[in-house]
């Protein structure tokens, strides 16, 4: 199962970035697939990107809300919110654990040996602040003379945009180098901070800052796919917490807002059969395979 998940993450990353003509065209992919929202965070200005980033698209629509309404187009993001809501209603935050390229990157970088630190739980609520403020309120309310807002999260925060679009496009289009200013270095610094933090802590961007993960997290308790915790079988051995890529204490309850349904706790951690999942209310019980370490007295 861990191998399968890694392969699915790799294939998903490859499919999300499958346009390898960019060294010849010196531009980004412009085909029809760009009208489809990718399930994970993958910048649509990345030269290889095949789909569109749901966060970038949502901000653009909100930033252009007033001019669109003036022109008689009532675009408020129904297509994007509907897509994310549909995915969330089915599997909750599972795309974060299985499909998102930026999630995979964080897991791989965290493998670099170093002292590891836990992220204080209070910081994990900051992603909701980023979602409300940077995706909805600021793009809608701070407007220029022509009534257009800005894509605040893309412009001032998103390290995926800097890594996947900023850095490669500066090399691909040397004319862009002349436009580099303080903002570019500010975004590079944010990317650098997150990369260092990824080495030290488990998935810091997903847990602290990602508005897309924040959107999916609302569905964890109400989706068709749900995790189950059997408190009678649980021994509070904390193995689930030790192996969880999101640092979740599963024994304190299933379907917490940060659970990305990677199933590591189920398949690689719990030796007592306390973890399982259900699909549309149908429990899928994984039988406990007796393990020496579980049977041997300490």
């Amino acid at each position: 199962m861990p191998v399968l998940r890694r392969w699915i993450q790799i294939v998903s990353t490859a499919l999300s970035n499958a346009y390898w003509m960019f060294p010849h065209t010196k531009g980004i992919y412009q085909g029809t697939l760009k009208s489809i929202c990718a399930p994970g965070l993958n910048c649509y200005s990345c030269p290889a990107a095949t789909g569109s980033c749901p966060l970038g698209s949502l901000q653009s629509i909100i930033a252009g809300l007033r001019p669109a309404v003036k022109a008689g187009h009532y675009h408020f993001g129904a297509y994007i919110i509907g897509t994310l809501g549909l995915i969330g209603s089915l599997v909750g935050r599972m795309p974060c654990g299985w499909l998102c390229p930026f999630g995979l990157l964080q897991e791989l970088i965290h493998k670099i040996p170093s002292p590891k630190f836990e992220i204080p739980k209070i910081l994990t609520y900051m992603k909701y602040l980023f979602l409300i403020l940077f995706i909805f309120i600021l793009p809608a309310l701070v407007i220029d003379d022509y009534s257009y807002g800005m894509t605040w999260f893309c412009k001032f925060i998103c390290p995926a945009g800097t890594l996947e679009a900023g850095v490669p496009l500066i090399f691909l289009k040397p004319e862009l180098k002349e436009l580099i200013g303080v903002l570019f270095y500010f975004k590079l610094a944010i990317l650098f901070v997150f990369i260092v933090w990824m080495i030290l802590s488990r998935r810091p961007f997903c847990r602290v800052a990602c508005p897309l993960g924040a959107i999916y997290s609302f569905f964890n308790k109400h989706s068709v796919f749900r995790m189950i915790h059997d408190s009678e079988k649980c021994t509070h051995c904390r193995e689930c917490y030790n192996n969880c890529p999101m640092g979740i204490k599963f024994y304190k309850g299933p379907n917490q807002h940060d659970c990305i349904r990677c199933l590591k706790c189920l398949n690689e951690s719990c030796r007592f059969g306390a973890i399982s999942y259900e699909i549309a209310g149908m429990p899928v019980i994984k039988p406990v395979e007796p393990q020496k370490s579980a049977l041997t007295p300490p």
Partner: protein
Amino acid sequence: MKAEYILPDSTISPKRAFPLLLIILFLVLILLGINLGEVSTVMEKAIKICLDCIGIG
């Protein structure tokens, strides 16, 4: 060892019905968005290089 599947009873509890309602709601939203022409708006934004994403906007 194979996983054991327990079949649900035939009654639909509110807990089970809620995700279904959500699915219908969001499917309707997708169709509404398509009807309003949002797909082409998403496409238009996604095929242009976004200077904000790069950090030089």
